[in-house]
């Protein structure tokens, strides 16, 4: 029997509320399939299965809030047969039922969610099959009615994670000013030949450069768990995305070092859209191995990040701006520059290694065509 547990989708997450089951007992699932939607303090997140099998029991009913690590469902491994009926209660699956003719079509899950959120379903217009009111419709109505609550919950969650980080992680900070003339020229030429839909942002070039530079300093990529550093062979970069109306999330783009800039741009664009719509996946929220925060064009000159536990490093990029720069010949000229920073965990690495990473990052950004 395979136990499917509620994953921690972010360091600050302690519990989650089950909003919707997307599978029922008897359904086949494979690794990566979305099985449920869970509300964290930050967003509604799609929970994926980490294993392959057949759904045996759904143990948490829709509407219940359970701690991280709770078994929410069990799966039968391929070839495994169902044990005789046990004591564990089977939660009712959120199967759609035929609505009574005079009533508004509302899925049971949506009705339960509406009750817990205090939303009047009769006043909603549905977007489900035959105009049925779905959990999403209820969520949207609740979010529209109480934006301040969601923002303050997120603020509290960010505060909890960052407090834990500052309490537990001995940060050290480094900064490096990086000339961006080559990268900017290359990007302008590249974008001139790309269609509007395929144009790249400098942020994507910087993201890939971070992932490639990490190959030489693996001690910045991974997790601090149970008193020891566990390096990650995969490079999943958490991207800090600001949410309209306040707050931020940092979901991962997977295997950044192995993807083309075009693919990374498409994934980033999709991730930003989904982060703001509140439809991220559990794996994106739980497995970044390092985070990049990029203030973009309208930001400040430099950002000194706070590490997201259990990660051990965060890389920051300020605004690319024209500033004075002395070149190798000692000639002073105006040059587009960016200040890249590293905040890293002193339990795992030292400033010398961190500096090596920033030097490597600078070099990678001088050869944008190789990214």
């Amino acid at each position: 029997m395979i136990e499917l547990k509620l994953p921690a989708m972010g360091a600050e997450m302690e519990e989650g509320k089950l909003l919707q089951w997307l599978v029922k007992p008897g359904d086949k699932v494979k690794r990566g399939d979305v099985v449920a939607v869970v509300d964290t303090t930050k967003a509604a997140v799609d929970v994926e299965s980490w294993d392959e099998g057949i759904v045996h029991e759904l143990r948490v009913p829709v509407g219940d809030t359970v701690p991280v690590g709770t078994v929410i469902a069990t799966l039968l491994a391929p070839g495994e047969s169902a044990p005789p009926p046990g004591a564990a209660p089977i939660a009712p699956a959120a199967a759609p039922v035929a609505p009574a003719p005079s009533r508004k079509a509302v899925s049971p899950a949506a009705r339960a969610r509406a009750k817990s959120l205090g939303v009047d379903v009769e006043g909603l217009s549905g977007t489900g099959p035959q105009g049925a009111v779905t959990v999403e419709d209820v969520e949207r109505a609740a979010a529209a009615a109480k934006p301040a609550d969601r923002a303050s919950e997120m603020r509290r969650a960010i505060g909890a994670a960052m407090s834990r980080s500052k309490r537990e992680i001995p940060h050290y900070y480094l900064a490096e000013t990086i000339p961006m003339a080559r990268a900017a020229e290359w990007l302008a030429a590249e974008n001139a030949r790309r269609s509007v839909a395929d144009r790249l942002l400098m942020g994507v070039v910087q993201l890939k450069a971070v992932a490639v530079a990490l190959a030489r300093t693996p001690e910045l990529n991974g997790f601090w768990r149970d008193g020891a550093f566990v390096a990650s062979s995969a490079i999943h970069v958490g991207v800090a995305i600001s949410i309209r109306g306040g707050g931020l999330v940092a979901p991962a783009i997977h295997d950044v070092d192995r993807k083309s800039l075009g693919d990374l741009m498409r994934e980033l664009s999709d991730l930003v859209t989904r982060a703001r719509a509140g439809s991220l996946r559990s794996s994106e929220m739980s497995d970044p191995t390092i985070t990049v925060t990029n203030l973009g064009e309208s930001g400040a000159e430099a950002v000194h990040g706070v590490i997201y536990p259990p990660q051990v490093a965060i890389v920051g990029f300020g605004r690319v701006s024209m500033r004075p720069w002395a070149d190798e010949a000692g000639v002073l000229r105006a040059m587009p520059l960016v200040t890249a920073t590293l905040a890293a965990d002193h339990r795992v690495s030292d400033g010398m290694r961190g500096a090596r990473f920033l030097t490597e990052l600078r070099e990678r950004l001088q050869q944008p065509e190789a990214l």
Partner: protein
Amino acid sequence: MNDADIRKEVVALIRSVAPEVEESDLASSLPLREQIDLDSMDWLKVILAVHEKLHVDIPEADYGKLRSLDDWVSYLCRRLA
């Protein structure tokens, strides 16, 4: 399309990316990105929305000309002529 139509369309496309924006909050002659919260990705989405809706391909080299709502209107007016 006259100036007023173009302005209405541009505001609608900006609102498709930044739904919290109210047209009455926008001063026509001030830089848009100082008035509303549009990051580089949002900006690219506005450019793409204009491309898809009005079929105007805006080269990256022209982004700098599109600071205020007035700039957008006169630029698109010229390109659509």
